[in-house]
């Protein structure tokens, strides 16, 4: 299926969880925050929440800033 990940189309296995997505892009779950369709997820829900076709997913982390 195709989801919108950080503003771009991204191919992911159907039914993938948020945790699975983070793993597939090589990101430690403890260092990211995720928003699905405008709703911010609690970190403990990464394992539970599955993604669907066309979901808008934002994955953010901390970078240097002032």
């Amino acid at each position: 299926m195709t989801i919108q990940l950080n503003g771009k189309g991204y191919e992911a296995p159907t039914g993938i969880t948020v945790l699975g997505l983070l793993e597939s892009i090589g990101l430690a779950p403890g260092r990211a925050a995720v928003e699905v369709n405008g709703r911010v997820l609690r970190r403990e829900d990464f394992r539970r929440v599955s993604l669907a076709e066309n979901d808008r997913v934002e994955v953010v982390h901390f970078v240097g800033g002032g």
Partner: protein
Amino acid sequence: MQNEHLTIAGRSYPSRLIVGTGKYPNFDVMRQAIEASGAALVTVAVRRVDLTKRGGESLLDYLDTHKVALLPNTAGCYNEEEAVRTARLAREAGLSDLIKLEVIGDEKTLFPDNEGLLKATRTLVKEGFIVLPYTNDDVVVSRRLRDAGAAAVMPLAAPIGSGLGLQNPANLRIILEEIRDIPVIVDAGVGTASDASIVMEMGADGVLMNTGIARARDPVRMARAMRLAVESGRLACEAGRVPRKLYASASSPIEGTLR
């Protein structure tokens, strides 16, 4: 006045200097500079993960979060919605309620949009955030932010990254006289060490800076300078400076000179 600790929303941090993590030559210099600064709070930005750069080094690899607490910001947000959304993501990413709230109103100056800032402050305070809003030197706005539940107010000394130092001492003095129940932390515009001591001498509770350290020729040395400047300014504030006079006053006794 108590010298060393900065207390925000009941938590005590063992330094009055807050430093940023942006614009350093590299992460290693950043790490050393933060250590030299003695800062106990460091700001970080929230950005989309760049999917094209896998496995690169991460900022957090260079921050010892046992020593420094993270203060995520909402830099780059131009309205209430963006700022609130970014704050919520920051909370999940950092598992902390602290947020340096920025709602920017102008691209060239990065001056705040105070109307949006107030709204976002109200929203985030309700959601349990400890909100540290970046604002300009307007006492009317500072008072409203305080009344809206901000845990500190953070007026600028000068535009972010400008290095101009305190541009309007009268306005800062007015804010310091008015806002007495929460910390006043001067955020942005500090260019060199004396810029930091000047605001501390006036009675500011803390200083937040990034460019002044990160873009100095020698960031680690400048970080040490800033640490001492903040301590020095605080001590001078507590020590009570001499009054200014137009004419001289001899330091050596007048009696007993040879004539």
